[in-house]
């Protein structure tokens, strides 16, 4: 993925579905909102910095930013428990940070340095952490869905009570193996929550131009998999739906589909001029539905958090991100001997 988009016809802003917030919004405590704010802000600032480093030529190849979609992964994580697995496609930096992976290790992987999570051998699309139960980071659209179903297969086999959070985009949701996976997950009642992050564009192709059924929550209907559409811009609705889905999966009822209605502000990848959508469409989402701004407003107005406290959160986040960038630009490249390592594991005698 990641090639520059052909300049297709710009979709008129009015063609795009209007974003509809959920009618009954569950409330967060102050601490929950603060947590969500900090987590989402970390992803936002991290991605902005990654974009900057890419522009400076310090990050190579493809770089798919998660800006705009932060509420999805943060809300999911708030509903999960330790030991639940996470797996996603190539737009994966946000997921790693939300799983608790070290921003330094993630950024250093983006710059291809030895301190990166994959020692510089994976890059933006291929990072993993056994410790944080993050299983990648996959560059073949839709492959992570069968793999994530396999994680759930192992959970069921080992009877460990864990759930696999398997993320995909609206584009991946059209891949054949997604339905092969849905079938087996439902047949065997595997503990998997499929999170379809519908950001309205599969690279440069709008959902309406690629999908006969644009309601992705219905994509599991013929397998008897329940699904729901969720306001993916509001971290509270995400967490509430996630809790329902996870409970369903963990209790042995089988898979569950959450269609997260979200939006990416940036192009598909860094080289995407985004001519397939109007500037108005983007700015309308940013101005009216930004997941971070909504929490910030709540913290200030409903929870009475002083502005100074938020500023100190902002400063702290900025510091973490700057440190990660500093590390990622000064850490050496991998030793040339690394070329030949990690191809096969030694068989134990």
């Amino acid at each position: 993925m990641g090639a520059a988009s052909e300049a297709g016809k710009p979709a008129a802003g009015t063609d795009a579905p209007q974003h509809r917030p959920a009618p009954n919004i569950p409330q967060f405590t102050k601490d929950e909102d603060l947590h969500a704010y900090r987590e989402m802000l970390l992803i936002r600032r991290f991605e902005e910095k990654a974009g900057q480093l890419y522009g400076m030529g310090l990050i190579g190849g493809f770089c798919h930013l998660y800006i705009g979609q932060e509420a999805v992964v943060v809300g999911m994580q708030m509903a999960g428990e330790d030991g639940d697995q996470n797996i996603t496609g190539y737009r994966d930096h946000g997921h790693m940070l939300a799983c608790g992976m070290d921003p330094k290790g993630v950024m250093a992987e983006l710059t291809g340095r030895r301190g990166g999570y994959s020692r510089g051998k994976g890059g933006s699309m291929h990072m993993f952490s056994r410790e944080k139960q993050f299983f990648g980071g996959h560059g073949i659209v839709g492959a992570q869905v069968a793999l994530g179903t396999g994680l759930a297969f192992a959970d069921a086999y080992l009877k460990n009570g864990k759930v696999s959070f398997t993320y995909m985009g609206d584009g991946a949701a059209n891949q054949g193996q997604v339905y092969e996976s849905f079938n087996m997950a439902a047949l065997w009642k595997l503990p998997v929550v499929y999170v379809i992050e519908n950001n309205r564009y599969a690279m440069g192709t709008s959902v309406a131009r690629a999908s006969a059924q644009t309601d992705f929550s219905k994509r599991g209907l013929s397998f008897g998999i329940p699904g729901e559409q969720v306001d993916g811009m509001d971290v509270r609705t995400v967490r509430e739906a996630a809790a329902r889905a996870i409970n369903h999966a963990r209790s042995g009822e089988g898979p569950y589909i959450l269609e997260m209605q979200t939006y990416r502000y940036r192009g598909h990848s860094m080289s995407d001029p985004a001519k397939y959508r109007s500037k108005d469409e983007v700015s309308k989402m940013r101005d009216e539905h930004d997941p971070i701004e909504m929490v910030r407003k709540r913290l200030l107005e409903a929870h009475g958090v002083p502005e100074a406290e938020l500023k100190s959160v902002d400063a702290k986040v900025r510091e973490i991100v700057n440190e990660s960038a500093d590390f990622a630009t000064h850490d050496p490249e991998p030793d040339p001997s690394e070329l030949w390592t990690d191809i096969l594991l030694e068989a134990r005698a």
Partner: protein
Amino acid sequence: MATDILMPALSPTMEEGKLAKWLKKEGDPVKAGDVLAEIETDKATMEVEAIDEGILAKILVADGTENVAVNTPIAIIAEEGEDVSAAAASGGKGKPNGASDGGAPAPTPDMQAEGMAEKSAATAKTGDDAQKAPASPAVITNKAPDPVMEEFPADSPMKTMTVREALRDAMAEEMRKDDKVLVMGEEVAEYQGAYKITQGLLQEFGARRVVDTPITEHGFAGIGVGAAFMGLKPIVEFMTFNFAMQAIDHIINSAAKTLYMSGGQLGCPIVFRGPNGAAARVGAQHSHDYAAWYSNVPGLKVIAPYTASDAKGLLKAAIRDPNPVIFLENEILYGQSFPVPEIEDFVLPIGKARIHRPGKDVTIVSFSIGMTYALKAAQALAEEGIEAEVIDLRTIRPMDSATVVESVKKTGRCVCVEEGFPQSGVGAEIVARLMVDAFDYLDAPVLRVTGKDVPMPYAANLEKLALPSVAEVVEAVKSVCYK
């Protein structure tokens, strides 16, 4: 006019079977569609139906007879009104037997078996012997591997078993040892395996560990890889490796590359196994040999055994290996028998070739079913005074070129034999390595005998032409020996 009922074949590769039971007696009237008898092999059972009306005049092969070769007359049907005893005495006229045409395998001669049984160099090229009855080798029982490779104590007790049984035993033994080992694939459980390789595993290990999947290769290969990321050790059976084309993305992009892409964090202990290459008369989409394809990919190990003993020892090693292993079997070899050491926990090293037959004049390198051509050619050549050393690669990746190079240093000549296509094939790789590592020792260009560069045809004569032959191996060897 009296008609012979012939022993039918349950599959294109069947050579013989057991006449389990007669359901009609001599003198019984029969109608078309009546079940006359039941036959069975170690793989399956089948009913023999009548296709004509008449009287069962004589039963030629009694209930319970084992090892009845395909196309042997098993009974005679007399026409209504015909003198039954005269008909029985005169015998039939070889009319095809009663296997129904409702999808049951036709009782055609087993061309593949014939190809394997061939002795004469001339027959291979002409293909005009295709109409003859098969040479009817019974289950081919092979001699013990040559003792030049001491992989088990020479005085080990040996048990003769088929490759099929050896593979099953290897899986069963590893499953008994390690609860994380499981088998998944199409028809592996209740059906007992499309080729009966998983026979009895469901009964011993239950449905948790012997998992029937839907027909969905891409999906279940991905699920297997995901489960392996979690530390399970799945054995994923493909009904044939041709179907693994639907799953090859997961085999290569997900299984083979993740260890590297994760900087060594995430291994994938998985075995993908199943029959590979040509069986017999199954056409282009069921006959492809993928040894060269998978051998091209770093991060994979690729095994293609010939003998039952190697099948067992290497499958056990593959299951224990922490890396993704492609285990290429061969349908025609499944029913062949070989001696297998009966020793506790017989495991062989991956990545070691075996000198199957020592010789001094020329080296023949092959693997899997290619070994059948190589060994028959070596036998024929020995009769003409050429002593060929036959090396069974056993593992294609990592390739044990050292064993090949050492042999070529001794013989100065080499022929590579495989059923796969010539371009970028396994033989091409061996040639390239010999150019680098044995150039100064070569007395002749290294030649390859391969499958022809065409999609596998269906017609019996064309299929035979498309595959390598013993005659071609003999010819190639003589050519490199300048004889």
